[in-house]
């Protein structure tokens, strides 16, 4: 009867207005037994980092379909580090060209899930990291 849950924040930084994918992943993670905090659309990196810290999540999942991932994703990692919360792990998904993945990982994003990645792959990744 363990009461300990893994908490995950799902956020959409920037101006991208399509959230069906993010909501889909959020629901899949809930069905896998996680506590998922969904912050909605058009979040600034500051707002995402603040939320992550208040909610004391282990993971932040960022979704971006508008191409702004290269600037926005690393910004979230940076702010978390500034606020001494670099132990919160960040992963991302959305429309992200595979060429951009190494750069993002170098900036501190732990994993990127490109379109076509199954919810199972996300769940398995979180469970094993």
């Amino acid at each position, binding site marked *: *009867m363990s*009461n*300990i*849950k893994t*908490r995950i924040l799902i956020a959409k930084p920037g101006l991208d207005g399509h959230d069906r994918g993010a909501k889909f992943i*959020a*629901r899949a*993670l*809930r*069905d*896998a*037994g*996680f*506590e*998922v*905090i*969904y*912050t*909605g659309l058009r*979040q*600034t990196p*500051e*707002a*995402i980092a*603040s*939320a992550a*810290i*208040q*909610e*004391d999540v282990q993971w932040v999942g960022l979704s971006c379909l508008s191409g702004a991932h290269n600037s926005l994703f690393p910004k979230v990692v940076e702010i978390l580090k500034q*606020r*001494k*919360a670099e132990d919160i792990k960040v992963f991302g998904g959305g429309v992200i060209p595979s060429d951009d993945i190494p750069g993002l990982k170098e900036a501190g994003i732990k994993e990127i899930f490109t379109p076509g990645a199954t919810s199972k792959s996300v769940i398995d990744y979180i469970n094993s990291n």
Partner: protein
Amino acid sequence: MVQKILAGDIRSIARAITLAENEDYQAVELLRYLYPHTGRSYLVGITGPPGAGKSTLVDRMIAYYRKLGLKVAIIGIDPSSTFTGGALLGDRVRMQAHATDSGVFIRSMGSRGHLGGLAVATADSAKILDAAGYDIIIFETVGIGQSEIEVASQVDTTVLVTVPGLGDDIQVLKAGTMEIADIFVVNKADRDGVEKSVMAIEQLLSTWDMTEDDFIPPILKVTAKDNIGIGELAQAIEHHKKYLHDSGRFEIRRRNRAVTEVRTLILNQLDKWAHDKMTKDITTRDNIEEVYLKLIDPHTVAREALRELELETMWDKWGQGADGGG
């Protein structure tokens, strides 16, 4: 960590709430040190059926209290799935405008399906936020399961939010839920059916046995999304707070809260004991199988399982024999 929480450090507050939610032993120690620093915050519960617009209402209330220079904390509680244990916590979505305001702390909680667990997690997080200096702590719950009852026992003022057009409003609200309300809000008051909703609540109130000393719950018409009625709600809460202090009910309620807390902690442990007994003790498990096969009755099995605790049970009082007969 205690010093950091008293100084209002967000990370420490968040971590402490996690410990409390996880029923970590560190939380017990922490709370012991924080306890003397509590007692300043005012606790408000906001509850109602899904779709009533509670989160939007809370968002506007945050803005209102912030203008007065008050520090506000919100705990949004959503049900956890009893099957998967997971939860989708979406209250924050409507309040994210305040995400970077250092005077606002927003936390989402799953009900985690634990007997009385929600009341304990709620009470503990309230203490942490109280010690950290938040003036108002708002608990938002959906009227599903027992969460609103558990939370109502932990707060000073309970606000019940409903909307017009929920069919016959009052039938929709469960018995017991209505009685916990100190203030009624009919939200989305720009919709048709507002007067009908207000009348339905008035009718219900007229059936209550109230004396002159009792607080008569006001019924407020609010349109949260347009920021209409928020000031009136804050004033109604203030009015209720004054009533509680003037009538002495404030102290009575806080005393009752102490009783509820201790009782919940005791029941929590007993529930764990029972769960372990029924799943790990071979004799009890075998006996339960015999109940299923109709070879033995449940009372006898329960009585046997409880022997270990050496309590005087109802069966002892009735003087029944060990075989359950008589």
